[in-house]
């Protein structure tokens, strides 16, 4: 199946259950987790990335990917990087690291902290912060 959980490593914290976009990571009877619907798995690997115990692995789709491959990923919000390691069937290894964010997590200033817009602007085509950040011609009125 696309992602699967190692019995020995899963502690049933449920982080994968919480994040799965497809709602397919569920608890087992003995409170570990399992991918209940592998044919609805997109291999987005969000469950793998979120698992602090590295309990989730991938064996890619049975109908078109030969066995013997592996992929591991470590997403680190401290170094703001995602690290990848891909192993070929023939043993060749590829490693990559890419940035994930340029600002600290939680640092976005919400719109209500900004000055209130001119009430008249509600009736113009201007959107939030465009007056401040965008050349006027970009919202020209035809």
């Amino acid at each position, binding site marked *: 199946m*696309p992602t699967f959980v190692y019995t020995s490593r899963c502690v049933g914290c449920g982080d994968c259950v*919480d*994040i*799965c*976009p497809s*709602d397919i990571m569920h608890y087992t009877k003995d409170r570990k987790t399992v991918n*209940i*619907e*592998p*044919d*609805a*798995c*997109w*291999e*987005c*690997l*969000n469950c793998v990335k979120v698992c602090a115990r590295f309990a989730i692995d991938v064996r*890619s*789709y049975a*109908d*078109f*990917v*030969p*066995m013997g*491959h*592996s*992929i591991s990923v470590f997403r680190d919000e401290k170094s703001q990087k*995602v690290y*990848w390691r*891909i*192993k*070929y*069937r023939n043993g*060749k290894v590829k490693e*990559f690291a*890419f*940035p*994930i*964010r*340029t600002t600290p997590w939680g640092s*976005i200033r*919400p*719109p*209500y902290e*900004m000055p209130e*817009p001119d009430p008249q602007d*509600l*009736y113009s*085509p201007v*959107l*939030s*912060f465009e007056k401040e950040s*965008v*050349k006027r*011609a*970009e*919202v*020209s*009125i*035809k």
Partner: protein
Amino acid sequence: MTRVSYVDSDILIIGGGMAGCGAAWEARYWGRNLKIVLVEKANIDRSGAVAMGLSAINTYLGLRYNENTIEDYVNYVKTDLMGVIREDLVYDYARHVDSTVYLFDEWGLPIFKDENGRYVREGRWQIMIHGESYKPIVAEAAKKSASEIYNRVMVTHLLKDSQNPNRVAGAIGFNVRDGRVYVFRSKAVIVSAGGGSQIYRPRSTSEGKGRTWYPHWSSGSSYGLLIEAGAVMTMMEARFSVPRYKDGYGPVGAWQLMLKAKQTNAYGQDPFSLHKEELKKLYNGKYNYVDAFPTPTNLRVYSSLLELRQGNGPIYLHTEQVLTEKNEELGWEDFLDMTITQAILWAGQNIDPMKSPSEILPSEPYVMGSHATECGAWASGPEDIVIKEASSVDERGTSYSWGYNRMSTLDGLFVAGDACGASPHKFSSGSFTEGRIAAKSAVRYIKEHSDEKVSPDSSQVEQLTVKIFEPMERYNKNKGMITGGKVSSNMMWYDQGMARLQKLMDEYAGGWSSWYTTNEHMLLRAKELLAYLKEDFINYAVAEDYHQLLRTWELWHRILTAEAVINHMLFRKETRWPGYYVRSDFPALDDDNWRVFVNSKYDSKTGTWKLWSVPVVDLR
């Protein structure tokens, strides 16, 4: 016993993908004291089409640096869709989309920049990003903007006002983990619930069915909700397929636009040059679509299909001609950011992209309004670009404007992203932008209707509360009749319904197994078979638990979407986008009669459809 929660809000946003997040942000900016509620069937941190990540922003004009003009962009989009787009809608999001990208940049999305700080171009309209965390970054902004976010709640139906059947007053759904029913009562509703995958049979079989190009969780819910509520829909026939790396569905944009990798048939020939003259005979229209630069996507796809049909496949993308040790990382990141399977597939099949080419194949069809196509609701255009105004509610289905930007033909119901039709090529940044536009418009709507009392029709709420759980009730009533398994004469599970839907759409409505070809006879057969499926859903659908109930209602949204697609394809008696599908009984493009929008309205009481065409009006 059903537990019910009532949630009141000023603005309700259904779907927390790119468009929904944009709506939450903008609604808060203009409506500081409003109660803004966002409901999402998964977890907003990783939901929607960008849940995995993305390696490029496909719509950024660079107006600040005079890289492009809005007019150039509108012309490009119009040509790509073979002349049929709402120019007012496309112009509108295009003038705002750069400001969305500047927000993303400020929030911390890593965008490739050159030594002068300018964004690195992947193509004329596209820029490259390190987009693994695109969605959680954008979700952070939405979470700080919305008053409340309900994760894991699937909305099944929109609710109408008790006094005015043309007024939407909220929505109903259930928590997919504990089964609690949520009745959302809201002054304005924004539908941004994504496009439709898994409506046509995927090329993958068995376990790989989950690896479609657009995600499994894009269940056509935008369309299902809008259709059943009676909103006018447009261009539902423009369901399309995308050429992608075979099986893994790895993106080809960066490879073709930035790395300049060439596509050929098995013998090294360019499919488009081989078929260009032939295409001109049928598809040049009045506006020389075949000679346009860049070539409309569907014509390039069609030339590949012709080569495949003639036995000259596979179609290859020649990565080996362009990839070196120096730029290799770019190609791999393209996959790892957004289609990890493609990287695993190369590893499993021992494909070294520096040494050998990879196969390209057009996908199964998808029903969408945000990518290079335009299915969705017929929406009112921007207030300052009025082409043809409606003078009555009845006229909305043929007009371009009725007062509130991105409002559907139903009062108080707004649309964005995949939900908004005839507004193609938005992609992630444009969808977020359209969410912003819709939300600002919704804030204005609320201000101008502050004395209006709206409340959902209580009998509708009661009926739906029972109806939502019918599949579970039916299962519990009937499960004792069989010893086990999922074969029964009076129960139909969601996966069985999905299989029937996908097979009939594939075989009769222009799926891959029929080379995307259909005709009136086949479409009528599709309609007949779909009617049986719809009846069976109503009489036999079962769900054992809340997860299956989620899948069951997703199937309902897919069935309604498919019904719209079939009816629209039947109505358009020409072949407008041959790479997406060919009507073999009307194999040519017909600009004289069919350069029009096809609009429709569904009557949920009688189950009947009304279809009509609306002329395309150009801005100039």
